[in-house]
């Protein structure tokens, strides 16, 4: 399924690469001992290093390095045992040193790959060019005062991983799938919380268009897009803009642009006159970052099971369909919940209930799996009652609703409300006979060949038994009489 933009003179292909800035989960900052936690009173999570005071020296945080290595391993990427830090120079009020410490020529992580899956079930590999460590900047607030901007440096110096993809993405859908997959991997690894609303994951989007078979044309970079939906929209409108320029005989300027979701357009952010020249050079305060192969192996040995592997295992071990396995592994907490429910039980039945009624209930009540009103063990307890024949599937739905409301265990609800399914064939036969007696006309129709009425009779019998009849036995009894 190729995504093409229909231009006046024929179709155009889309070329997209993404740079994702992912905030590293750590206690303290990349180069200082100040807290890296979100929130906090303004300028309290700031050391003199972060504030750029003269003579302050950066000292790297081992855990931030470990997080970058874990992420690299999760992206099946090359880990560079020696990497370096450079200064990226620019002036901005929330960058006290006048430079960002980043990795330019020698990043800690090299080439890797991420497999994405599209709506039609097809998969594609998106190449990772590199991942490097760098510092976040502070925050500027422009709406507090008519003449001044206010600066909070709490975020200044927090570790970021910049994850750069190859220009392998060919549609907005692929961009969305890539970001979702990347976020899933980061969350599994525990290296970034992936929360785009709070800004702990942000994307710069490089977009160009070309005719089939052409080399790349000039790209534009859309900065700091903060939701997956906006990334997809930004790509779409930017591609259309570029096609129009080329088709009108113009040429696209390489520039930084901004996506305005309210007007669904991109706008030039910096004039070419002011184009940034970062004048990178090796940071003289920092020696090369050298890590041991044994340490990398140790980190690799302690990685959690990642989504792709878990999904495959769910298919193999539990015999559930690929799609269901994908839904269940989307979040680690969901996968854990499912495994608790499925342990020692029918794994398909467990999958159907977790994905079906249980997810629906979470949606309806606005809860998440973390504060679920029904625990995995409680849901499992209910499945046990289905499996051992105490209740049928229909009654189970009522019991489930009751569990949701009262928090009671399934067995207690079944006892209290007398919901045990009736397997006494005498009682079932009696109910069948009563229904037939009450509907002589339908019975006549059925006997004259209207087979479809069988379902009607089943329904009537179940209704007469308040839903508690064993469906298999009811069917059997009806077949016998009819």
């Amino acid at each position, binding site marked *: 399924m190729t995504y093409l933009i229909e231009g006046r003179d024929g179709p155009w292909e889309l070329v997209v690469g993404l740079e994702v800035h992912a905030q590293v989960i*750590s*206690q*303290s900052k990349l180069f*200082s*001992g*100040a*807290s890296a936690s979100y929130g906090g*009173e*303004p*300028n*309290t*999570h*700031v*050391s*003199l*290093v972060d*504030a750029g005071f003269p003579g302050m020296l950066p*000292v*790297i*945080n*081992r*855990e*931030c*390095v470990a997080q970058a290595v874990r992420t690299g391993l999760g992206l099946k990427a090359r880990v560079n045992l020696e990497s*370096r830090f450079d200064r990226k*120079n620019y*002036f*901005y*009020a929330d960058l006290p040193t006048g430079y960002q410490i980043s990795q330019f020529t020698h990043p800690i992580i090299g080439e890797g790959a991420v497999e994405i899956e599209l709506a039609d079930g097809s998969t594609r590999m998106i190449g990772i060019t590199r991942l490097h460590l760098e510092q976040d900047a502070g925050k*500027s*607030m*422009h709406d*507090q*005062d*008519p*003449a*001044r*901007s*206010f*600066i*909070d*440096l709490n975020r200044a110096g927090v570790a970021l991983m910049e994850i750069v993809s190859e220009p392998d993405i060919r549609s907005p859908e692929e961009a969305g799938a890539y970001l979702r997959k990347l976020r899933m991997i980061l969350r599994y690894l525990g290296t970034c919380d992936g929360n785009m609303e709070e800004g702990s994951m942000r994307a710069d989007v490089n977009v160009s268009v070309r005719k089939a078979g052409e080399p790349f044309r000039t790209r534009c970079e859309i900065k700091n897009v903060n939701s997956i939906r906006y990334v997809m929209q930004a790509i779409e409108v930017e591609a259309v803009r570029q096609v129009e320029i080329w088709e009108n005989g113009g040429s696209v300027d390489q520039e930084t642009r901004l996506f305005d979701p309210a007007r669904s357009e991109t706008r030039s*952010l*910096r004039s070419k006159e002011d184009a940034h*020249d970062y*004048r990178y050079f*090796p940071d003289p305060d*920092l*020696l*090369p*970052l*050298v890590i041991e192969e044994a340490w990398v192996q140790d980190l690799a040995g302690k990685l959690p099971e990642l989504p792709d592997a878990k999904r495959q295992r769910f298919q193999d071990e539990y015999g559930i369909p690929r799609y269901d396995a994908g839904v269940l592994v989307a979040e680690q907490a969901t996968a854990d919940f499912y495994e608790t429910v499925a342990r020692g039980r029918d794994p398909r039945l467990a999958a159907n209930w977790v994905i079906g009624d249980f997810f629906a209930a979470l949606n309806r009540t606005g809860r998440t799996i973390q504060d679920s009103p029904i625990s995995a063990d409680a849901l499992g307890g209910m499945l046990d009652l289905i499996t051992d024949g105490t209740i049928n599937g229909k009654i189970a739905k009522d019991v489930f609703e009751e569990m949701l409301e009262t928090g009671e265990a399934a067995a207690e609800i079944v006892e209290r409300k007398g919901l045990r399914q009736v397997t006494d064939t005498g009682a079932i036969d009696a109910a069948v006979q009563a229904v037939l007696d009450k509907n002589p006309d339908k019975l006549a129709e059925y006997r004259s060949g209207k087979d479809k009425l069988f379902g009607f009779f089943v329904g009537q019998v179940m209704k007469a038994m308040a839903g508690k009849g064993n469906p298999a036995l009811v069917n059997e009894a009806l077949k016998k009489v009819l």
Partner: protein
Amino acid sequence: MSLDPATVRRIARLARIGIDESDLPALQRELNGILGWIEQLNEVDIDGVEPMVGTGHAALRMREDVVTDGGVRDAVLSNAPDAAGPYYTVPKVVE
């Protein structure tokens, strides 16, 4: 390598240093002098020599991930010319 006046002007702008047009020729001459001096290093044959990044311990020391600093807002803001409450302030910057 020799810098033309436009490059000198550009370097000044990137460094946010305001210079008078009349100072350009002198600056150009000084910068070119410095570059010429540095370029003497190109005469050294470094084929097959690994780049040297420092003397002695040649790898970065790492620290443990614990919070040992921060909570010193008064010190952090002590040099701020125009602090407002807990914030630094600067003349409004809006791109």
